[in-house]
């Protein structure tokens, strides 16, 4: 009975609303406003599922170097996935298939990050990441298509490809803006397992850290409003490195000044690495590179000069593996390497690019190395 009364009351209420609407319509006969046209939603590029985006990067090419047979070269196939799990949480994954020096193709989980973005001032991520050591490593990651030159500067070669800096790590990463007005300051703080050094060791300590010391990296950079395209910054990393013999305290300081706009790309970075044996000697390694390029329509000629000089008795770099970016450099390379590279990048259509590059390396105590590279880099 009570239910019937409730229903009767609802019917009366609806009748009253309908009568009011009719009266209003008679009083104001203006036509009802047309419903807004539907907002167009163009399909999102590379969206393979409602949440998942996939980008593929790859590169192939041909190389002539004067101390090794010239060869066709499969560089890498990079599957980059990202997804937004909620408004503030996203995930990023990168699986890399890369040619090895023994002609096999290795598979590498290059990055796997769970990212929380609280605001522009605080982003936190956890997982496997590319370290913010200098500018180049996180600006270009493993995307040859995004790089102007055919390869990374020697100092920023990936650690699992013979590089000497810790380019990858497992841990946490905090980034964000610092309220600084037109100065445009940003910060980066990272804490991870650090890099492993030793013969035939995977540099990134994916499963087990070799010691209890964690790698701590911090950096600041500025993008001033007054000079659009300019970024200057520095980073300092500290870790205790476990190698055969006394433990080594490692400090890596980097500075960078880069300018990138539609036409110009000017990259300058300097690195100082300090290795101090416990109660023993100190070894300082210096390195820098400078890269200049200018776009002329679809062509971008570029020039790079790089310098690296490690003490011959450095207790850590003697364990460096063969560097795949400089074929003459065998494992355990120490000493001085310097020289110019010059080339031209041709973006002949939107996404594939071809690069022609000449390299000349001088290695202390060894013959000079000359090389030519043709690289086709693409993304889809």
């Amino acid at each position, binding site marked *: 009975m009570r239910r019937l009364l409730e229903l009767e009351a609802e019917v009366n209420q609806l009748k009253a609303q309908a009568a009011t609407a009719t009266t209003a319509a008679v009083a104001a006969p203006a036509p009802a406003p047309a419903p807004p046209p539907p*907002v167009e939603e163009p399909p999102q590029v590379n969206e393979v599922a409602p949440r998942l985006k996939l980008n593929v990067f790859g590169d192939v090419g041909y190389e002539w170097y004067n101390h090794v047979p010239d060869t066709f070269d499969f560089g890498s196939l990079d599957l980059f996935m990202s997804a937004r799990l909620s408004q503030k949480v996203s995930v990023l994954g990168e699986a890399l298939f890369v040619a090895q020096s023994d002609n096999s193709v290795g598979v590498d989980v290059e990055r796997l990050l769970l990212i929380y973005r609280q*605001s522009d001032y605080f982003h936190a991520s956890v997982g496997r990441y590319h370290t913010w050591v200098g500018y180049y490593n996180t*600006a270009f990651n493993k995307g040859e298509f995004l790089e102007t030159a055919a390869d990374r500067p020697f100092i920023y070669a990936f650690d699992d490809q013979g590089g000497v800096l810790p380019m990858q790590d497992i841990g946490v990463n905090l980034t964000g803006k610092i309220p600084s007005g037109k100065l445009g300051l940003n910060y980066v703080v990272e804490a991870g397992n650090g890099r492993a050094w030793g013969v035939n060791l995977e540099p990134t300590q994916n499963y087990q850290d070799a010691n209890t010391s964690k790698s701590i990296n911090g950096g600041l950079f500025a993008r001033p409003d007054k000079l659009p395209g300019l970024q200057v910054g520095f980073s300092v990393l500290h870790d205790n490195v476990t190698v055969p013999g006394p433990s080594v305290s490692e400090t890596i300081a980097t500075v960078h000044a880069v*300018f990138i706009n*539609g036409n110009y790309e000017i990259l300058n970075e*300097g690195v100082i690495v300090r290795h101090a044996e416990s109660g023993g000697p*100190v070894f300082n*390694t210096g390195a820098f590179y400078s890269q200049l390029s200018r776009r002329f329509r679809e062509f971008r000629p570029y020039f790079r000069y790089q310098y690296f000089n490690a003490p011959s008795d450095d207790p850590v770099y003697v364990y460096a593996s063969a560097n795949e970016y400089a074929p003459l450099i065998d494992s355990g390379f120490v000493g001085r390497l310097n020289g110019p590279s010059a080339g031209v990048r041709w973006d002949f259509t*939107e996404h594939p690019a071809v690069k022609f590059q000449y390299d000349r390396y001088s290695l202390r105590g060894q013959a000079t190395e000359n090389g030519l590279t043709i690289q086709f880099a693409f993304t889809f």
Partner: protein
Amino acid sequence: MKKHNSVAPVFLAIAILAVVTAIWLTVLPHPAEAASDPIVVIVNVANPVDNLSTSELKKLFLSDRSRWDTGKAVAPVMIAPGAPERTAFLKAVCGMNDSDFGKYFLQAAFTGKSATAPKEMSSYAGLKTFVANSPGAIGFVKAGDFHGDGSDGGVKAVKVDGAAAGDAGYKLRM
């Protein structure tokens, strides 16, 4: 304690490169002002912002700033590629062409940034509807597509660098 130093050349090189960079920056060409049709920047009528600098516009459209001062999420929207006003806007505000613009967001995604490319509309009617329906939206239209007499429905124009689209000193033009 034995010391091996090979860092002196690094300091010298950094100093030289800093000087070269500074010189290069001073001789870079600056965008010339063109005296043609203005491009009107529009926001939702509920957005209290009335003026934006070019550098603020760049941050908003390059997803370098994700929230307005009111806390609303920034939702940039653009006309689809090919429109001359889009080309002019990207050049004047972002210093990019369409290819660079796409590459910027590709690189931003690849570096793990939260950058999201602006929504794209195929018509200015759709664009204005989107801005009118989204409190945090920002877009731009040709001057001929913005009447400013209340008939644009839920959107309003904002000044750029303190100048309105009708002012002689307005820089954002096709």
